[in-house]
């Protein structure tokens, strides 16, 4: 995919958002869409780690929640304007996760997942225990300023504007990730994922690229956390809980891990499904669990894989 073609696709995606806005009149439905788009960004973060590194994270809620907490605390203390707070938060998450990554990517396979789970739960427990400014398990509200990036708060918090902004962020993040994968760095990480020993043999240092992918995926999760903080104006330890990481991982696997579209589809399907069930059943988690098992058993490469198979079968016939 060339750069022009990608810009064209991105433009088309933005137009699609306009069409969705035009067709959707209900604000609650739009709110649900916004949430779906935010989790799609989050799932992209988890998905890129799995796709480029072959590593499963059970603790990305850490970066999702930490982004919200970081902005909330900076704004509460009045250290800097909100725009700078956002930048500082993302840079902070990037550098912190890179350092964490350097240490933990050495741990193989499933133990890596358990390690991320442990680190995430540590943050959750800290947030629950920490009283005072962050309000412990009650969470804290975020005092966004009256204008953000020159847009007034009343405009920004309109459901339609929030949806559009989240959508544009999702498109931007996707474009950046696609570009990154096409670079030499992308090729190197794939080589390491497929065979770390061989990659080392041909003279590639493996720890740094792995940690860099980990940091990249953490920053993407942080972006999602910031969007969620803007959307709800609130952050609580629930954002950090391991079940959030697990549900996001589910979205990734249900959507399909082999392409970047998978996590996005997975997140959107999850929220549509949840909304659909919300009216009929109180036991949405059980039904979701059953649906998850069905998808994994019958289509190991996710919904994307199922679509592709449908498509291919038609083509193969003479």
């Amino acid at each position, binding site marked *: 995919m060339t750069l022009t073609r990608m810009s064209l696709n991105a433009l088309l995606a933005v137009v699609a958002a306009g069409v969705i806005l035009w067709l959707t009149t209900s604000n609650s439905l739009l709110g649900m869409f916004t949430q779906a788009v935010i989790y799609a960004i989050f799932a992209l973060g988890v998905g890129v780690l799995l796709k480029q590194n072959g590593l*499963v994270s059970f603790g990305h809620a850490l970066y999702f929640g930490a982004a919200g907490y970081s902005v909330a605390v900076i704004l509460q203390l009045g250290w800097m304007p909100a725009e700078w707070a956002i930048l500082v938060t993302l840079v902070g998450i990037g550098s912190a996760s890179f350092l964490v990554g350097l*240490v*933990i990517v*050495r*741990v*193989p*396979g*499933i*133990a890596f*997942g*358990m*390690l991320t*789970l*442990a*680190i995430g*739960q*540590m943050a959750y*427990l*800290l947030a629950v*225990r920490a009283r005072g400014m962050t309000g412990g398990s009650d969470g804290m509200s975020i005092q966004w300023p009256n204008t953000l990036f020159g847009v007034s708060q009343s405009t920004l918090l309109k459901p339609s504007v929030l949806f559009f902004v989240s959508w544009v962020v999702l498109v931007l993040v996707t474009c950046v990730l696609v570009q990154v994968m096409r670079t030499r760095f992308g090729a190197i990480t794939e080589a390491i994922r497929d065979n770390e020993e061989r990659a080392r043999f041909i003279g590639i240092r493996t720890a740094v690229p792995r940690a860099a992918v980990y940091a990249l995926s953490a920053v993407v999760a942080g972006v999602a956390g910031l969007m969620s903080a803007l959307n709800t104006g609130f952050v609580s330890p629930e954002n950090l809980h*391991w*079940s959030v990481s*697990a549900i996001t*991982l*589910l979205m990734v*696997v249900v959507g399909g891990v082999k392409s970047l579209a998978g996590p996005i589809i997975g997140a959107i399907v999850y929220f549509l499904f949840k909304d659909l069930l919300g009216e009929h059943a109180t*036991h949405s*988690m*059980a039904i*979701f*669990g*059953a649906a*998850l*098992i069905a998808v*994994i*058993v019958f289509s*190991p490469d996710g919904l994307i894989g199922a679509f592709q198979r449908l498509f291919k079968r038609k083509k193969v016939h003479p």
Partner: protein
Amino acid sequence: MLTIQIFNGLVYGALLIVMSSGLALIYGLRRVVNFAHGALYMLGAYIAFAVATVSNFWAALVIAPAAMAVFGVLIDRYGFRLLQDREPLNVMLVTFGLLLILEDLVAYIWGKGNHSLFTPELLNFSVSLFGHDMPAYRIGVLVVGVLVALGLTLWLRYSRMGLFVRAASTDPVTTSMQGVNTDVLSATVVGLGSALAGLAGVVAAPFLSLSPHMSSDVLIDSFVVVVIGGLGSLAGAFVAAILLGLMQALGAVYLPGVSVLLPFIFMIAILIWKPSGLAGSRT
């Protein structure tokens, strides 16, 4: 004070032994990280609650693990065996789906509120030990932990079946070529592991409260134990369980601010020092 804390730590460690040995056995043979183990623990506790209200605790101590054993065999037959050629991540997520279903089921049957189970009459007294009064029930928990550890070690080391389990954990294909029916073996091991989860649930019920979310803490602690011990290693898990129990109990007194973080810090330190865990050389 110190004696009581050490005692409480050992009791929690014993519970973790019962819980994590099942997890380690199943991982060793099936290479499955079983999130449903937490659900089986919870089901064991709730079944104990149900049985104890119509009959007594001792009946529950037999019925709940037996029911979980049957359930475990079914999970192996219609879950793990059919999925054994799949990516480990996918199987892990299937067990996570199972956890979601079972948590909802428990909330549906018994409600979302907390329940508690009384300490059985027979053990509702205190024993004076090292100058302190220790509740007899907790001593009983300690005994259960020791019996499970001892029983599993002897079974694996000296029985024919234990030999097969050890062989199949190292190389399932070669083992089945030697004429061992690994399907039956797996069903037995997963059934046994599930029974242990149920047993842990029953044993924990009188001193931890029952809720549909009770599995989370113990499950994560057991994961920590299994990973620290070295995935699939029983001896490693025993040592790690006792260390973790002690660490939590002592931490609560001497380092109250960070006590909840200690297990995780411990795990991170161990894995950085030895990525395959205390006893592990397997990947």
